[in-house]
């Protein structure tokens, strides 16, 4: 297959060693969970519990609204103490249910039982995955069953299991691949069956040799499966860049991977699919990498959805000194948090704590048009011109220069000698363009 290196990209310091040797640990139940209703891209599910209700582990607490939406489940048994606005790690205050665990961790009936999935057909698998509330766990939280339901005219011939984990610091996918390679491959085979795909590639960056080894030894007995070790360059794990690097296929602007016959799923999502189909466990917990020099003991933890950052940080020995910044996700694409009351959601792959010295405080200067951002933009955009358009509030021009295709990877901001907040500009432009389109329709 063709492929090779995608255009642009950067080589940041990875700092993966902080957490990559830490085995995944189960975090004990915290005293309360803040479970956001909006945890998937698309329509947020509608709450079906109210204050004072008793819930059991895995019970549906919010029903999906429409196709691009998934149900939400109670992460443990207990009672709903309140429904109120709480900070959501994506950067807004949103409604969430506060669940106080009763400590019994009692499953709702019919869940958490091993079953033989051999006879399940594609529709059955997709149904289970939807009902288990699965979303893409690399960070975007797009409902998985939607990705598994491409229209007839766009057949998929290749499934890519994304274990690139190119974000600096994060090591949760890395650990999952080392510790659960067979389960990840089984989850991938469920996706492959749901799509009728024969060919599966597991893609891992070369800086994770143990993960590569673990997957390699687990993959041998699976026909049609292959492992590809990728060059270490950020953003290697971005969907479009990954597809190009592996196959040479280019996803068209504004299109989806299905337009070139490919589906990409994160390793964490594959693991969650395995749990859902083989054991009837909905998505109520996930692996989160709590790392950075601002945390006493960096760890990879399995935390219940709704665990606050405060509780997760306390479990990892607390903050070391005074944190300068706490980021949900990785340092390149994550969102800085103002409150540690923000909880872990289905899309939270990591919590990165930076020390005060590591956080640069700077004033951004005018663009000097050096073109470094143009050289690193993996989407082949012109970030320099775009940022200037946005500063001048010329959103029509930004649109004409395809700002909407920006994947917000942050390479441009990383290399900018004027320290311009490029991605912030582009997010603003995208918001303006979308609201204009919404008004027009």
């Amino acid at each position, binding site marked *: 297959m063709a492929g090779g290196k995608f255009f642009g990209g950067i080589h940041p310091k990875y700092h993966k060693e902080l957490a990559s040797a830490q085995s995944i640990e189960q975090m004990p139940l915290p005293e309360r969970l803040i479970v956001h209703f909006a945890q998937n891209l698309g329509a947020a599910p509608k709450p079906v519990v109210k204050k004072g209700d008793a819930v059991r582990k895995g019970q549906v607490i919010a029903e999906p609204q429409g196709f691009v939406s998934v149900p939400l489940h109670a992460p443990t048994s207990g009672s709903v103490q309140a429904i109120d606005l709480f900070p959501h790690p994506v*950067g807004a*205050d949103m409604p969430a249910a506060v669940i106080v665990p009763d400590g019994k961790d009692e499953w709702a009936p019919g869940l958490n039982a091993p079953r033989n999935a051999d006879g399940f057909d594609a529709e059955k698998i997709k149904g289970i995955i939807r009902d288990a509330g699965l979303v893409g766990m690399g960070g975007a939280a797009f409902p998985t069953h939607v990705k598994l339901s491409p229209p007839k005219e766009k057949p998929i011939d290749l499934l890519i299991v994304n274990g690139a984990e190119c974000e600096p610091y994060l090591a949760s996918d890395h650990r999952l691949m080392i510790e659960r390679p067979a389960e990840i491959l089984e989850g991938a085979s469920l996706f492959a069956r749901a799509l009728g795909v024969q060919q599966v590639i597991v893609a891992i960056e070369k800086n994770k040799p143990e993960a590569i080894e673990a997957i390699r030894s687990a993959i041998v007995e699976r026909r049609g499966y292959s492992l590809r070790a990728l060059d270490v360059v950020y953003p290697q794990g971005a969907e479009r860049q990954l597809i190009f690097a592996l196959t040479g296929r280019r996803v068209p602007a504004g299109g989806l991977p299905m337009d070139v016959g490919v589906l990409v799923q994160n390793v964490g999502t594959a693991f969650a699919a395995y749990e859902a189909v083989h054991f009837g466990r909905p998505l109520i917990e996930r692996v989160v990498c709590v790392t950075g020099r601002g945390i006493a003991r960096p760890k990879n933890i399995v935390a219940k959805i709704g665990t606050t950052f405060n509780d997760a940080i306390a479990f990892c020995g607390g903050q070391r000194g005074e944190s300068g910044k706490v980021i949900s996700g990785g340092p390149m694409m994550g*969102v*800085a948090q103002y409150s540690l009351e923000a909880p872990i959601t289905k899309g939270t792959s990591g919590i990165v704590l930076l020390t005060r010295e590591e956080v640069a405080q700077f004033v*951004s200067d005018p663009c000097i048009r050096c073109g470094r951002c143009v050289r690193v933009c993996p989407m082949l955009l012109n970030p320099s011109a775009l940022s200037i358009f946005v500063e001048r509030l010329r959103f029509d021009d930004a649109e004409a220069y395809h700002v909407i295709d920006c994947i917000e990877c942050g390479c441009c901001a990383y290399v900018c000698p004027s320290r311009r*907040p490029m991605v912030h*500009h582009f*997010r*603003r432009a995208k*918001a303006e363009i979308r609201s204009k389109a919404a008004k027009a329709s």
Partner: protein
Amino acid sequence: MLTAVIALSALALFSSFLLAVVARAFAVPVNPKIEEVEGALPGANCGGCGLPGCSELARRIAEGKADVDACPVGGESVALKLAAIMGKAFEGGAVRKIALVLCNGNDQVAEKRFHYNGVRDCTSAAMLFGGDKACLYGCLGLGTCVGICPFQAMRMLPNGLPAVDPAKCTACGKCVAACPKKIIKLVPIDKRVHILCSSHDKGAKVRKICEVGCIACTKCVKEAPEGAITMHDNLAVVSYDFDIPDAVAACCPMNTIHVRALDGAIERLEEAASVSGGAL
């Protein structure tokens, strides 16, 4: 030499004849009033009337599709001129409006939730948790309104709030539209009593995060003439249809109500801001 002169002259003659014919044949009838009206308009192309620019408004006024006072910037004087041009009656006498920022939570009195280090623009800042102010309704103080004002009528005060220069403000409404918190209103310049808060939070929360926010105690509603101040979702709102006695301001326990005629000079306001933290 001679041949060249004759040839070029002939060519010039022929071309001018052609141009004359074309000009006649394809002439577009233009209403002469459009030009006259456009001349009378301020020519700032600010968009305050809601149209793309002064020429478009001029066309509409000349065609009778817009009123002579449709230009918010020109005010009464321009309206009178336009009325004369169009031969329409125009009474005048309407009170001029200016922009007013309905938040007085400056850096000293309003809490901030975090240190913001992103794009210096209110709309961009509001995209991250609604901005750094603990009050989700408060002025973010990054000067988007100041930057967008086509008349340089606004400026940032050292206390982190914008001030409007009454002499320069034309009530074009650009700042009103640009403010992501929607806390700028156009108010009649002759009114003196203003409630400088836009928070719909409950009183207990306001007390925690801002020293000068409306806590919805409703004292002013009772003090003011019936209907002049009304409660809207935990916020007292002034109706500028009424004249409210200055004394009403004294009843506010949070100093949210300010007495100030808006027609003063900006220097006086800056002085006031440095003393009491006023946003007027």
